[in-house]
């Protein structure tokens, strides 16, 4: 035996080779899914995020104008050559919709300029001789204001911080300094705060409801607990849309909940339950409750009853023993359940859209309307970036305390 080992000098090498072959086999098994997820999922998300800081529409359409603006000091109006360059650029893109795209982009910064830019682009094709400066200013006095030129210069950078600043209610002013936007346009910080507030509120309510229920179930006889768990698992398995539909029906002005209120003579007129903050929070609590409850229940099931007995027999009162012994033991479950619910709440779209108020949308709803109604990809991307960043930070914490592959599936 010793001889065979001694005469096989390559044994460590053979071990290493076998280990490498094993790794290779594992890699071959993993690679198809990895490629699939990267191509169909990660790449689109990265592309989306890149749109938050990359918008070449102005740079591509007005290259000579931007070149002429490079030496502009920003204090007075640009010189005649710059105006001539703008007219030349507009002439080059006549018959295409590029000028409209520039107008749309500049309109995000100064509202109402879109039509003026398109008008100037159309008029430019008829302009044959200088002075272009006077002709453009005569067309619209906007061209005699250095603001539009400062904005063209800022928007001319393909890599722009405009969308991200806007998502935080900031903008660059005419002198290229970052300042808060006008009060009337400052809406996005509010949307983000509202999203966090609703998520926190829903998380706290689910915790307040889930903790006592988990406690009672964890200490009930096994068969009764399993029976009662069905009440939690059936909603858990019912689709989010179906449950939102249920609330949509229940909360109608003439719906069952208002029927019940009037039947009990609690109020005469119907309560405004749907299309309000109340509707959003109620439906979200209903949907998220199992997510908060199940991890807490799991932790409570693992706590040996002898701890509480020991605390009691050592003279601790019921409340004292609970708060000093039992509650700290359940903290991992509370952390896991609440964090998961909070993270999932941040991304809610369907429920606020169907039972929430139109002016009370969360960040997902604002992203959706930026895409569907405004066709503003930059804004949608910047808000997505912020939402994704918040989600990732929280999941990083979740992963640290729970482990992401331990997410309970039911």
């Amino acid at each position, binding site marked *: 035996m010793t001889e065979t080992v001694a005469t096989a000098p390559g044994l460590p090498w053979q071990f290493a080779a076998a280990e490498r072959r094993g790794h290779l086999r594992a890699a*071959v098994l*993993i690679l198809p*899914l990895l490629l699939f997820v990267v191509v169909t999922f990660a790449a*689109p998300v990265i592309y989306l995020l890149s749109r938050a800081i990359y918008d070449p529409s102005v740079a591509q359409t007005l290259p000579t104008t931007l070149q002429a603006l490079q030496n502009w000091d920003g204090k007075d109006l640009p010189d005649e050559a710059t105006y001539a360059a703008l007219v030349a650029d507009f002439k080059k893109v006549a018959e295409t919709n590029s000028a409209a795209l520039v107008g749309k982009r500049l309109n995000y910064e100064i509202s109402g300029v879109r039509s003026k830019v398109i008008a100037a682009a159309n008029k430019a094709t008829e302009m044959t001789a200088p002075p272009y400066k006077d002709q453009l200013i005569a067309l619209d006095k906007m061209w005699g204001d250095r603001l539009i030129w400062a904005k063209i210069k800022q928007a001319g950078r393909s890599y722009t911080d405009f969308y991200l600043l806007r998502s935080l209610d900031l903008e660059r002013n005419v002198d290229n300094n970052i300042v808060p936007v006008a009060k009337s346009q400052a809406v996005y910080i509010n949307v983000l705060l509202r999203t966090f507030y609703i998520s926190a509120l829903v998380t706290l309510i689910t915790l307040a409801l889930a903790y006592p229920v988990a406690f009672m179930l964890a200490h009930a006889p096994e068969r009764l607990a399993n029976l009662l768990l069905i009440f939690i698992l059936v909603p858990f398995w019912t689709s989010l849309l179906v449950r939102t*539909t249920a609330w949509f029906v229940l909360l109608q002005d003439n719906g069952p909940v208002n029927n019940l209120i009037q039947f009990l003579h609690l109020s005469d007129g119907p309560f405004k339950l749907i299309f309000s903050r109340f509707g959003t929070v109620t439906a979200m609590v209903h949907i998220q409750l199992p997510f908060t409850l199940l991890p807490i229940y799991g932790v409570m099931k693992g706590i040996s009853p002898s701890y509480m007995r020991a605390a009691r027999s050592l003279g601790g009162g019921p409340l004292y023993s609970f708060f000093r012994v039992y509650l700290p033991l359940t903290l991992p479950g509370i952390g896991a359940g609440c964090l998961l619910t909070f993270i999932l709440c941040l991304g809610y*779209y*369907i429920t606020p859209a169907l039972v929430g108020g139109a002016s009370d949308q969360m960040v997902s709803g604002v992203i959706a309307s930026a895409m569907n109604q405004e066709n503003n990809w930059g804004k949608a991307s910047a808000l997505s970036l912020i939402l994704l960043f918040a*989600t990732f930070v929280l999941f990083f914490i979740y992963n640290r305390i729970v482990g992401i592959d331990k997410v309970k*599936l039911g």
Partner: protein
Amino acid sequence: MLKPAPYAMPIEKALFYGGWIFTALVLLFLIAPILAIVPLSFNAEPYFTYPMPGLSLRWYEDFFGNERWTGALFLSIKLAITVTIVSTALGTMAALGLSRAHLPARSVILGILLLPMIVPVIVVAVAVFMSFGYFGLIGTFTGLALAHTALATPFVVIAVTSTLTNFDWSLQRAAQGLGAAPVTVFRRVILPLILPGVISGALFAFVTSFDEVVVALFLSSAEQRTLPKQMFSGIREMISPTITAAATVQVILSICLLIGVELLRRRSERLRGIT
């Protein structure tokens, strides 16, 4: 412990009975909305109001007879089956690879594979809408199937990985030592043991696609209606009472799936000798 502990103080007894009343109310809150919608789907009148003036099956007739709904149901089933097959195959293979001990960069790979579960669905929807357009995939079955498969694979990976923890790999070596080819080892030894995990992963994948609405709203064309998308517009645009029938059918379906997964979980634990 349906009675308070014998040494319980009065305050504990009060908390105990109060706790059960509270539990009953919370469980009622959880189940009532889902149950309340079922009788309404038999309402003879197109209102969501109790008491109901009469019973009828007209909303079920609409659901199973109207081409808008049957087409949506058919498309959703077709889509979910496609997604289930592809994601179960890819996810099971990846889980087997990930189960190898001392795999380098395992946590990084797992993190990437589970990304679709973490990223908020609106971000996914906008991202695929922006990029699938370059490949002509918007409004196509392929586009929807690709996006849904990406969303479904993490659940398969998790379900199969959990059956592979504590997996006795000496069974594989024994089969190999007895001369079985790798494919035979997988088919005759490994697959039967991890089958409960594979099937429950497949059920999760099916449900993920079948219930998914946000990506479908962004990616599908006007004529391409999945069942959730049809329900969404049924609520948003016309408030058709058929949504109550559609919801009831889906609740029944989810209860069936829940029973299926629960039975599989028990079988899996028995197979692996946990209980």
